Protein backbone atom coordinates (compact mmCIF):
# COMPACT_ATOMS: atom_id res chain seq x y z
CA UNK A 1 0.00 0.00 0.00
CA UNK A 2 2.12 2.92 -1.18
CA UNK A 3 -0.63 5.50 -1.73
CA UNK A 4 -2.33 7.42 1.10
CA UNK A 5 -4.94 5.32 2.86
CA UNK A 6 -8.56 6.19 1.95
CA UNK A 7 -9.67 7.45 5.35
CA UNK A 8 -12.92 8.86 4.05
CA UNK A 9 -13.80 5.51 2.51
CA UNK A 10 -13.20 3.74 5.80
CA UNK A 11 -15.54 6.07 7.66
CA UNK A 12 -18.16 5.78 4.92
CA UNK A 13 -18.05 1.97 5.03
CA UNK A 14 -18.26 2.12 8.81
CA UNK A 15 -21.45 4.13 8.56
CA UNK A 16 -22.79 1.75 5.90
CA UNK A 17 -22.15 -1.17 8.25
CA UNK A 18 -24.11 0.52 11.01
CA UNK A 19 -26.96 1.17 8.61
CA UNK A 20 -26.97 -2.49 7.55
CA UNK A 21 -26.99 -3.49 11.21
CA UNK A 22 -30.13 -1.41 11.58
CA UNK A 23 -31.59 -3.20 8.56
CA UNK A 24 -30.72 -6.57 10.13
CA UNK A 25 -32.58 -5.74 13.33
CA UNK A 26 -35.50 -4.22 11.43
CA UNK A 27 -35.78 -7.27 9.18
CA UNK A 28 -36.18 -9.30 12.32
CA UNK A 29 -39.47 -7.57 12.99
CA UNK A 30 -40.98 -9.24 9.92
CA UNK A 31 -41.82 -12.80 10.80
CA UNK A 32 -40.58 -14.62 7.73
CA UNK A 33 -40.83 -18.36 7.39
CA UNK A 34 -37.63 -19.91 8.72
CA UNK A 35 -35.96 -20.75 5.37
CA UNK A 36 -36.66 -17.25 4.05
CA UNK A 37 -35.54 -15.65 7.29
CA UNK A 38 -32.26 -17.56 7.16
CA UNK A 39 -31.73 -16.53 3.54
CA UNK A 40 -32.39 -12.86 4.23
CA UNK A 41 -30.21 -12.85 7.34
CA UNK A 42 -27.34 -14.54 5.55
CA UNK A 43 -27.55 -12.19 2.57
CA UNK A 44 -27.38 -9.13 4.81
CA UNK A 45 -24.56 -10.65 6.87
CA UNK A 46 -22.66 -11.52 3.70
CA UNK A 47 -23.06 -7.96 2.46
CA UNK A 48 -21.69 -6.59 5.73
CA UNK A 49 -18.93 -9.17 5.83
CA UNK A 50 -17.87 -8.40 2.27
CA UNK A 51 -17.52 -4.73 3.12
CA UNK A 52 -15.33 -5.52 6.12
CA UNK A 53 -13.23 -7.95 4.10
CA UNK A 54 -12.88 -5.91 0.94
CA UNK A 55 -12.26 -2.50 2.48
CA UNK A 56 -11.02 -2.82 6.04
CA UNK A 57 -9.01 -5.96 5.33
CA UNK A 58 -7.84 -4.58 1.93
CA UNK A 59 -8.97 -7.81 0.28
CA UNK A 60 -10.17 -5.99 -2.84
CA UNK A 61 -6.57 -5.57 -3.93
CA UNK A 62 -4.56 -8.30 -2.31
CA UNK A 63 -2.02 -10.72 -3.69
CA UNK A 64 -2.67 -14.00 -5.50
CA UNK A 65 -1.32 -16.15 -2.68
CA UNK A 66 -3.82 -14.66 -0.24
CA UNK A 67 -6.69 -15.12 -2.66
CA UNK A 68 -5.60 -18.72 -3.28
CA UNK A 69 -5.36 -19.62 0.38
CA UNK A 70 -8.75 -18.05 1.08
CA UNK A 71 -10.42 -19.73 -1.90
CA UNK A 72 -9.21 -23.09 -0.63
CA UNK A 73 -10.48 -22.23 2.83
CA UNK A 74 -13.91 -21.16 1.60
CA UNK A 75 -14.23 -24.40 -0.37
CA UNK A 76 -13.50 -26.54 2.68
CA UNK A 77 -15.66 -24.31 4.88
CA UNK A 78 -18.62 -24.94 2.59
CA UNK A 79 -17.88 -28.68 2.65
CA UNK A 80 -17.93 -28.56 6.46
CA UNK A 81 -21.25 -26.70 6.47
CA UNK A 82 -23.05 -28.87 3.95
CA UNK A 83 -21.79 -32.44 3.96
CA UNK A 84 -22.30 -33.46 7.60
CA UNK A 85 -25.91 -32.33 7.61
CA UNK A 86 -26.50 -34.17 4.33
CA UNK A 87 -25.34 -37.42 5.88
CA UNK A 88 -27.79 -37.25 8.73
CA UNK A 89 -30.62 -35.80 6.72
CA UNK A 90 -30.06 -38.15 3.87
CA UNK A 91 -33.52 -38.09 2.43
CA UNK A 92 -32.29 -36.98 -0.97
CA UNK A 93 -34.46 -38.68 -3.57
CA UNK A 94 -36.67 -40.42 -1.02
CA UNK A 95 -39.98 -39.44 0.49
CA UNK A 96 -38.96 -39.75 4.11
CA UNK A 97 -39.62 -36.84 6.44
CA UNK A 98 -36.70 -34.64 7.60
CA UNK A 99 -34.59 -35.47 10.63
CA UNK A 100 -36.63 -33.95 13.45
CA UNK A 101 -39.74 -36.06 13.87
CA UNK A 102 -42.50 -35.81 16.42
CA UNK A 103 -41.51 -37.21 19.77
CA UNK A 104 -43.83 -39.66 21.50
CA UNK A 105 -45.38 -37.98 24.56
CA UNK A 106 -44.08 -39.40 27.87
Amino acid at each position, binding site marked *: *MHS*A*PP*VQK*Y*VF*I*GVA*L*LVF*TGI*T*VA*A*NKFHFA*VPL*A*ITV*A*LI*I*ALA*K*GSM*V*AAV*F*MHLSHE*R*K*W*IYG*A*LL*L*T*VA*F*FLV*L*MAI*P*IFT*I*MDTIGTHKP*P*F*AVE*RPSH
Partner: protein
Amino acid sequence: MNIPYTVEERPDTGLANGKLGIWLFLASEVMLFGALFSTYIILRTGSTEWPHGELNVALGAVNTVILISSSVTMVLAWAALKMNNFGRHRLFLIATFLLAGIFLVNKYFEYADHFARGEGPWHNTFLAIYYTLTGLHGLHILGGMIVMAYFIGPGASLWKRSPEQFTNRIEYTGLYWHFVDLVWIFLFPILYLL
Protein backbone atom coordinates in the same frame (compact mmCIF):
# COMPACT_ATOMS: atom_id res chain seq x y z
CA MET B 1 21.13 -13.39 11.20
CA ASN B 2 18.42 -11.66 9.21
CA ILE B 3 15.31 -13.36 7.97
CA PRO B 4 14.54 -11.87 4.53
CA TYR B 5 11.21 -10.20 3.74
CA THR B 6 10.32 -9.58 7.36
CA VAL B 7 9.55 -5.98 6.47
CA GLU B 8 10.04 -5.52 2.76
CA GLU B 9 7.92 -7.45 0.28
CA ARG B 10 9.34 -10.32 -1.72
CA PRO B 11 9.18 -9.22 -5.37
CA ASP B 12 7.53 -12.28 -6.96
CA THR B 13 4.89 -12.86 -4.28
CA GLY B 14 4.38 -9.20 -3.39
CA LEU B 15 4.11 -10.19 0.28
CA ALA B 16 5.93 -9.62 3.53
CA ASN B 17 6.18 -12.73 5.71
CA GLY B 18 3.83 -11.48 8.39
CA LYS B 19 1.09 -10.61 5.92
CA LEU B 20 0.96 -14.15 4.56
CA GLY B 21 1.31 -15.53 8.06
CA ILE B 22 -1.63 -13.65 9.52
CA TRP B 23 -3.90 -14.52 6.59
CA LEU B 24 -3.04 -18.22 6.93
CA PHE B 25 -3.80 -18.00 10.63
CA LEU B 26 -7.15 -16.37 9.81
CA ALA B 27 -7.85 -19.18 7.35
CA SER B 28 -7.45 -21.66 10.19
CA GLU B 29 -9.76 -19.52 12.32
CA VAL B 30 -12.41 -19.69 9.58
CA MET B 31 -12.30 -23.48 9.93
CA LEU B 32 -12.42 -23.26 13.72
CA PHE B 33 -15.55 -21.15 13.81
CA GLY B 34 -16.82 -23.11 10.82
CA ALA B 35 -16.89 -26.27 12.90
CA LEU B 36 -19.01 -24.49 15.47
CA PHE B 37 -21.37 -23.16 12.80
CA SER B 38 -21.67 -26.70 11.45
CA THR B 39 -22.46 -27.81 14.98
CA TYR B 40 -25.17 -25.17 15.18
CA ILE B 41 -26.71 -26.38 11.92
CA ILE B 42 -26.73 -30.02 12.99
CA LEU B 43 -28.09 -29.33 16.46
CA ARG B 44 -30.79 -26.99 15.27
CA THR B 45 -32.06 -29.27 12.52
CA GLY B 46 -32.03 -32.15 14.97
CA SER B 47 -33.94 -30.40 17.71
CA THR B 48 -37.63 -30.72 18.43
CA GLU B 49 -37.96 -27.04 19.10
CA TRP B 50 -35.44 -24.24 19.01
CA PRO B 51 -35.87 -21.45 21.58
CA HIS B 52 -36.66 -17.90 20.50
CA GLY B 53 -36.49 -14.68 22.44
CA GLU B 54 -34.15 -16.04 25.11
CA LEU B 55 -31.45 -13.52 24.30
CA ASN B 56 -31.30 -9.77 24.79
CA VAL B 57 -31.53 -8.52 21.21
CA ALA B 58 -31.03 -4.89 22.19
CA LEU B 59 -27.78 -5.64 24.00
CA GLY B 60 -26.64 -7.79 21.12
CA ALA B 61 -27.38 -5.01 18.67
CA VAL B 62 -25.52 -2.50 20.85
CA ASN B 63 -22.54 -4.83 20.94
CA THR B 64 -22.68 -5.13 17.17
CA VAL B 65 -22.52 -1.35 16.86
CA ILE B 66 -19.62 -1.26 19.32
CA LEU B 67 -17.64 -3.89 17.47
CA ILE B 68 -18.20 -2.31 14.06
CA SER B 69 -17.09 1.02 15.46
CA SER B 70 -14.00 -0.61 16.90
CA SER B 71 -13.22 -1.97 13.43
CA VAL B 72 -13.39 1.57 12.09
CA THR B 73 -11.09 2.91 14.80
CA MET B 74 -8.72 -0.01 14.22
CA VAL B 75 -8.31 0.67 10.51
CA LEU B 76 -7.93 4.38 11.23
CA ALA B 77 -5.22 3.54 13.76
CA TRP B 78 -3.28 1.83 10.99
CA ALA B 79 -4.08 4.58 8.44
CA ALA B 80 -2.67 7.19 10.83
CA LEU B 81 0.65 5.34 10.88
CA LYS B 82 0.74 5.26 7.09
CA MET B 83 0.35 9.06 7.25
CA ASN B 84 3.13 9.22 9.83
CA ASN B 85 0.87 10.49 12.62
CA PHE B 86 1.86 8.41 15.65
CA GLY B 87 -0.21 10.49 18.07
CA ARG B 88 -3.41 9.96 16.11
CA HIS B 89 -2.56 6.27 15.78
CA ARG B 90 -2.32 5.92 19.54
CA LEU B 91 -5.65 7.65 20.06
CA PHE B 92 -7.42 5.32 17.67
CA LEU B 93 -5.71 2.21 19.03
CA ILE B 94 -6.69 3.11 22.58
CA ALA B 95 -10.24 3.80 21.38
CA THR B 96 -10.32 0.34 19.80
CA PHE B 97 -9.07 -1.19 23.03
CA LEU B 98 -11.72 0.61 25.07
CA LEU B 99 -14.54 -0.31 22.71
CA ALA B 100 -13.43 -3.94 22.93
CA GLY B 101 -13.50 -3.67 26.69
CA ILE B 102 -17.03 -2.32 26.66
CA PHE B 103 -18.07 -5.23 24.41
CA LEU B 104 -16.74 -7.68 26.98
CA VAL B 105 -18.42 -5.84 29.85
CA ASN B 106 -21.73 -6.06 28.02
CA LYS B 107 -21.18 -9.77 27.46
CA TYR B 108 -20.47 -10.17 31.15
CA PHE B 109 -23.80 -8.57 31.99
CA GLU B 110 -25.55 -10.80 29.46
CA TYR B 111 -24.00 -13.97 30.87
CA ALA B 112 -24.59 -12.89 34.48
CA ASP B 113 -28.22 -12.23 33.71
CA HIS B 114 -28.70 -15.72 32.34
CA PHE B 115 -26.77 -17.42 35.11
CA ALA B 116 -28.86 -15.60 37.72
CA ARG B 117 -31.84 -17.48 36.31
CA GLY B 118 -29.95 -20.77 36.26
CA GLU B 119 -29.60 -20.64 32.50
CA GLY B 120 -26.09 -21.95 32.06
CA PRO B 121 -24.80 -23.94 29.08
CA TRP B 122 -26.41 -27.05 30.55
CA HIS B 123 -29.90 -25.56 30.31
CA ASN B 124 -30.58 -26.46 26.69
CA THR B 125 -28.68 -27.11 23.46
CA PHE B 126 -29.35 -23.61 22.15
CA LEU B 127 -27.69 -22.00 25.15
CA ALA B 128 -24.89 -24.56 24.95
CA ILE B 129 -23.94 -23.49 21.43
CA TYR B 130 -24.64 -19.82 22.30
CA TYR B 131 -22.20 -19.84 25.19
CA THR B 132 -19.62 -21.79 23.21
CA LEU B 133 -19.76 -19.55 20.14
CA THR B 134 -19.86 -16.26 22.03
CA GLY B 135 -17.41 -17.54 24.63
CA LEU B 136 -14.82 -18.52 22.05
CA HIS B 137 -15.46 -15.24 20.25
CA GLY B 138 -15.05 -13.40 23.55
CA LEU B 139 -11.72 -15.13 24.15
CA HIS B 140 -10.64 -13.89 20.74
CA ILE B 141 -11.64 -10.35 21.73
CA LEU B 142 -9.58 -10.73 24.87
CA GLY B 143 -6.62 -11.98 22.87
CA GLY B 144 -6.91 -9.00 20.58
CA MET B 145 -7.02 -6.65 23.55
CA ILE B 146 -3.84 -8.18 24.95
CA VAL B 147 -2.06 -7.62 21.64
CA MET B 148 -3.36 -4.03 21.47
CA ALA B 149 -2.24 -3.39 25.03
CA TYR B 150 1.22 -4.60 24.05
CA PHE B 151 1.37 -2.19 21.11
CA ILE B 152 0.03 0.68 23.21
CA GLY B 153 2.58 -0.13 25.90
CA PRO B 154 5.99 -1.79 25.56
CA GLY B 155 5.58 -2.63 21.86
CA ALA B 156 5.23 1.02 20.87
CA SER B 157 8.98 1.50 21.04
CA LEU B 158 9.27 -0.40 17.75
CA TRP B 159 7.89 2.71 16.00
CA LYS B 160 11.12 4.58 16.77
CA ARG B 161 13.41 1.69 15.76
CA SER B 162 11.56 0.54 12.67
CA PRO B 163 8.41 2.48 11.75
CA GLU B 164 7.71 0.27 8.72
CA GLN B 165 7.80 -2.91 10.76
CA PHE B 166 5.61 -1.37 13.45
CA THR B 167 3.08 -0.25 10.83
CA ASN B 168 2.99 -3.77 9.39
CA ARG B 169 2.37 -5.27 12.81
CA ILE B 170 -0.51 -2.89 13.43
CA GLU B 171 -1.88 -3.83 10.02
CA TYR B 172 -1.74 -7.53 10.95
CA THR B 173 -3.40 -6.78 14.30
CA GLY B 174 -6.07 -4.95 12.35
CA LEU B 175 -6.63 -7.90 10.05
CA TYR B 176 -7.13 -10.14 13.07
CA TRP B 177 -9.46 -7.60 14.62
CA HIS B 178 -11.58 -7.21 11.49
CA PHE B 179 -11.89 -10.98 11.36
CA VAL B 180 -13.19 -11.02 14.93
CA ASP B 181 -15.71 -8.37 13.86
CA LEU B 182 -16.62 -10.45 10.82
CA VAL B 183 -17.39 -13.49 12.95
CA TRP B 184 -19.68 -11.40 15.13
CA ILE B 185 -21.46 -10.04 12.05
CA PHE B 186 -22.58 -13.61 11.43
CA LEU B 187 -23.02 -14.62 15.04
CA PHE B 188 -25.42 -11.81 15.86
CA PRO B 189 -28.21 -12.65 13.42
CA ILE B 190 -27.72 -16.41 13.74
CA LEU B 191 -27.92 -16.50 17.52
CA TYR B 192 -29.99 -13.46 18.41
CA LEU B 193 -32.42 -13.10 15.53
CA LEU B 194 -33.04 -16.38 13.75
